[in-house]
């Protein structure tokens, strides 16, 4: 009887687990109508850029850097979404709906990203797709972007990152260089974060997804009217985002921004609850009244004593 129980329990468990095992092994299918959905956000540089920003903020933590296949070691493993196989297999609609609905370990991003942002991520992934047909203007600019990538591979360590500031124009110039045959060479197409140090995190000032030009330079303006403590001093920080290729390279530069007004909260924080906040004029008035009343009473008592002694 007991043995029978165990067998039934086990088989029930097996039946319950079967769909789960099936899911992990088989492909994640999206219904036909959803697959056929067209991307309403036009494929443009702006959209790709926005998609990249969203991808870096929301997808990278599990799916890894695009093209590097270095996602988290989960089961099932998060796919590198820029693999040609993935991009060929999935339509725009199916990528969008996988993002929207989620499944098992892939959470739903319906509440986290807006429609536009999710479609922009699709656009960003398509920008990595070799078989993707795009509008001519974008396509024309694409090969130009890809060519310098070969150069990046050539320049080697040590890398140099320098940061200089034009205080009058509120402009920062970042130069990123590597070494080639013992000489300093500009590195093109490297993504560099440039920001102003704040208490919890750095405030980015560069355009999202900005990369170095052929001289290895990124020019950015920073907001000179940004408040920054009582003296207006702040620190500009630049670092190379792709730490896997280049290692951790940072540069710092002191800048002066607008000073903030000092706070005076403590001056008025309590009414008269302690002596230091008690108004002096009230203190003097109160004490003088007390003094006058007591001295009058003392005077009366003394006079009474005098009268008594006179009467003797």
């Amino acid at each position, binding site marked *: 009887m007991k043995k029978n129980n165990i067998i039934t329990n086990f088989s029930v468990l097996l039946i319950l687990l079967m769909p789960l095992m099936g899911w992990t092994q088989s492909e994640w299918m999206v219904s036909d109508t959803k697959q056929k959905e067209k991307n309403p956000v036009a494929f443009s540089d702006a959209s790709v850029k926005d998609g990249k920003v969203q991808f870096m*903020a*929301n997808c990278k933590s599990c799916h890894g850097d695009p093209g590097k296949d270095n996602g988290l070691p989960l089961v099932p493993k998060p796919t590198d979404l820029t693999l040609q196989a993935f991009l060929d297999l999935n339509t725009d609609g199916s990528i969008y709906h996988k993002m929207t609905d989620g499944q098992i370990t892939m959470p739903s991003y*319906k*509440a*986290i990203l*807006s429609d536009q942002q999710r479609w922009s991520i699709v656009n960003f992934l398509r920008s990595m797709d070799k078989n993707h047909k795009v509008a001519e203007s974008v396509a024309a600019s694409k090969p130009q972007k890809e060519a310098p990538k070969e150069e990046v591979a050539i320049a080697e360590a040590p890398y140099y990152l320098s940061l200089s500031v034009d205080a009058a124009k509120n402009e920062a110039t970042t130069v990123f260089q590597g070494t080639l045959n013992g000489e300093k060479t500009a590195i093109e197409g490297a993504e560099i974060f440039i*920001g*102003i140090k*704040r*208490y*919890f*995190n*750095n*405030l*980015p000032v560069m355009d999202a997804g900005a990369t170095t030009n052929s001289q290895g330079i990124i020019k950015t303006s920073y*907001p000179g009217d*940004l*408040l*920054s*403590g*009582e003296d207006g001093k702040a620190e500009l920080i630049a670092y190379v985002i792709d730490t896997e290729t280049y290692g951790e390279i940072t540069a710092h530069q002191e800048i002066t921004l607008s000073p*903030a007004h*000092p*706070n005076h*909260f*403590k001056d*008025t*924080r*309590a*009414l008269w*609850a*302690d002596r230091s906040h008690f108004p002096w004029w009230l203190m003097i008035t109160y004490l003088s009244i007390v003094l006058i009343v007591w001295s009058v009473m003392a005077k009366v008592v003394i006079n009474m004593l005098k009268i008594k002694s006179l009467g003797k």
Partner: protein
Amino acid sequence: MSDKKSKNNSRREFLKIGSLFGVGVAAAGAAAYSGFASQDGHGTSGETILSESEQKIKVLTEDGTLAEIKASELTPIKKDEYTDALQSQGREGIAGKHWAMVIDLSRCRNVRACMASCQNAHHLRDEQHHINVLRMQDDRNTEPYFMPKPCFHCDNPPCTKVCPVDATFKRQDGIVLIDNERCIGCRFCIAACPYSARVFNWFEPKDAEKDEELLYNVELNVPQKKGTVSKCLFSADRLREGKLPYCVSACPNGVYYFGDLNEDAVTNGTSGETVRFSELIRQNAGYTLMPELGTKPNVYYLPPKNRMFPFEFKGKTTLDDEHHG
């Protein structure tokens, strides 16, 4: 055996206190000192036992580094003095800061992770809230929404002005705190607060027995004390360490931004993204609650527009029944 146990206990206390006040002020008195000295002496057999004055003692400094100090240079300090130091740093606040929070109502979906982490950090009973997620509906024709409501740490706080014993006060960094060692439980401040941000410890607080040994930290308000008032502290203890408040970092949906107005920057607790405070408020029509009162709150709301999910509470998508039924 019991001797060894007491040694361990005294060391634990030593480290606990040392971690609070660094090399100069550390140590739980002579007991801890002798505990350390004898342990080191016997622990390494074969080595010469150093004289007591030359032995070094390991101390955890305030910033978390392990340091060594000569036993003879150690100046023990009484427990009262740690409390005093905690009190004075708690009253002073962090110079040059002006903390503010931004709550994006369009992202809140009533997960209540903020409330849980807050209650956990401040040892609050289930019915006590430093931050509470409310269900709101402005009009019968408008969509209801969820609204987290902490203390607003007003720049012109009505609560601190009515306190007869200076137990609640505003610091230089804008945070309004309560010192429950001064609080006499009159609850004037609860009456004065227009936002109902304060709670009263009517009963023995949660974990009262466990917390008996703890030093009172005015920036954490732990241990809570029966018969005193408690409220949101903007996690003043976390800010001192450069971390975001408990509720802000617990939120899974990116509802909260927190930062320093003197730096004009706020950081999202979920994504870690830092944005300009003034731009965020201007572009999204940020507002404060009941501005007509002149309290100048430091908690800003972004309106529940472009909502990313429909309002749903216990299967209902409206509050109509509760309001009109």
